[in-house]
């Protein structure tokens, strides 16, 4: 009974003016966060390349700053901000929430870490646990990515602790794309390498300031060529790979190079 009275004494009595101030701070913070999450991406999506990505990356950072400022303004209104009081209140709340909503709180903390360490930012192309797509929103608890099939996937920031996160462009416009070609082994490999390099050089999507590479690997069934190059914008990656593939097939056909032919394996269960 005495403990309850002590805890209650930590909190200030909220008079109508304090309640109004509290309400205004909460309302202001909410409005600012909403504006930040709608207005900044709207502006960013009217820009291109690096500027777009930089501006998108600012969204979660600004939200975190708004939350911190709101928190700093609210706490003195509710409790007497002495060290003793803060430790007592935050310790009690932390213990209670930690047991009841462990994963939820872990995701929130991981969300803060994600904003600071930036393993992914808005506009990045990432893969988490086999799901690949463009980061569309970095929320407090989850990161939302849109897959190439236009499916929105929410992944808790919690994955940050124990999953590998593959980031294809890491905040910049440079995203390497690979077009694969599987060819019959009997051909002039030098001519094919030159032709594939020209295929990349002549794609209208190519970022010409980035290198082009052709990796050749001999396999039991034929020769595997990997044509690596960068599109101008990461959002062009699938159109870029398609363009490389279409142009590559056309020029290889002109060179008389045949695709590798693998005999179909009969179904063992049939």
């Amino acid at each position, binding site marked *: 009974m005495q403990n309850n009275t002590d805890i209650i004494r930590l909190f200030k009595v909220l008079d109508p003016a304090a309640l109004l101030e509290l309400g205004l701070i909460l309302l202001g913070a909410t409005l600012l966060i909403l504006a930040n999450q709608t207005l900044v991406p709207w502006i960013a999506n009217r820009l291109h*390349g690096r500027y777009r990505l930089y501006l998108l990356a600012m969204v979660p950072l600004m939200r975190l700053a708004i939350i911190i400022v709101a928190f700093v303004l609210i706490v003195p209104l509710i409790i007497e901000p002495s060290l003793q009081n803060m430790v007592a209140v935050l310790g009690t709340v932390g213990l209670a929430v930690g047991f009841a909503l462990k994963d939820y709180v872990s995701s929130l903390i991981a969300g803060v870490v994600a904003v600071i360490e930036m393993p992914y930012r808005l506009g990045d192309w990432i893969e988490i646990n086999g799901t690949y797509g463009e980061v569309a929103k970095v929320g407090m608890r989850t990161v939302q990515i849109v897959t190439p099939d236009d499916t929105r996937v929410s992944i808790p920031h919690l994955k940050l602790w124990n999953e590998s996160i593959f980031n294809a462009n890491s905040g910049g416009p440079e995203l390497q794309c690979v077009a694969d070609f599987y060819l019959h082994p009997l051909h002039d490999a030098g001519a094919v390498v030159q032709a594939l390099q020209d295929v990349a050089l002549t794609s209208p999507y190519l970022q010409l300031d980035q290198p082009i590479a052709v990796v050749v690997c001999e396999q039991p069934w034929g020769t595997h060529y990997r044509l690596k190059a960068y599109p101008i914008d990461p959002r062009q990656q699938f159109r870029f790979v398609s363009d490389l593939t279409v142009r590559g097939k056309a020029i290889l056909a002109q060179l008389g190079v045949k695709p590798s032919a693998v005999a179909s394996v009969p179904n063992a269960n049939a």
Partner: protein
Amino acid sequence: MTSRDPRPDTPPPLWEVVPIGEYAVPSTLDSATVRKKWSALGRVFGMGSKRVQSPLRAETDLRALPRIKLEHLAPPIDWSHGAAALEDALRDRAADGAPASCVRVLVGQPFAGQAEILEQWALAHEAAVILPPNPEAILAGDTSPLDDWVGRMEAQPDCPWVLPRLEHWYFRHAGGLRLARRLFEAAFAGRLGRGLIGCDSWAWAYLQRIWPFPGVEVLTLQGFDGRRLGVYFLESARADRDKPVRFCHAKTGENLLPDPDSDSERDTPDRDDFPVSVELKRLAAHCRGNLGIARIYWRNRLRAEPDGDDDTTEDVDADKSAMHPDEETVWLSAGIEDPVLPAETGEEVVLVLHALLLHNGPPEGVLPELLPLSQDRILSILLRMKDLGLVQAHSDRWRIAPLGYATAREALRARGYLIDAF
């Protein structure tokens, strides 16, 4: 490329051919530039531009000049001056000990006249003008036109040659680079003797990615800054007219070129103290020193007073006309709005613009080979851009329109596409 000091100590000649690294893009940072950037930003965010201005002469009071008069006031550019400047530059380099058999390249922006300069030079030196092969041969990688030429040159090794349009010797297609590479092999190995190659700046930017050009001497016509434009417009306007012409700005009434009755300035327009109006500096900066485009802006903005103009006689410049009855006042309208690409312009439009610039007007039939778009789609985009004033058709080729060049270049630069070095 460098930015030019607006008032150099000694005035350079009007026509000057310089190494490409010495090309000076005229620059200006004034309220007009800030206003232009602001309105571009407004367009990005979908806001219309609100213009508040009180011109000295309202645009509606002025009338367009007849075509014949425009031909006198802003006649087609005589590129033989550029050819003479090129000859001077070549002579200077020969005096510096450059090998007589080497091949040099003259690069310039679209409409900057490098092909015309080379054709004039060829005419003056009885050099062979090498025309590009047909598009089908380029796409097929057929090098027989080049082989024929090499054979002819081996028979006449001392005959100089000029290849004025290198941009029409390649296509951005996997099969369209072979001929250009073979040409570079033959030319820069000295198998073609002494020659000059003309190339558009956009094609040159791209061709540098497919072929290394170390040691190749690349020249360009120096950019026309405000002073050069003033001298050029003054000289070209009075070349075949007896009656002096005064050029005034419709908004401010400012005299854009020196007084026609000022003999000292008339006789010595190359003088260092040639007065340069702010408007000409702006025009030079907007056109990036490109004389061909600057002339078209200038010509399209020239206006005349309406016949029987009664209610504007109180104007200061009307008074000037009264003071000089034997001279004619021509007004420069406040400005021409460049064509605007809508903010929601899709990627396909940008791809088409880039292809047009990289090839300086490719044949319409070849565009589907260069772009991942169907013929119908490309044609619909071209027609839409033609309505916007961004492109124009000439014979079977589509080019960026001179007045749409700045818009197209800026759109490509903002989106990270390869642009020229000018």
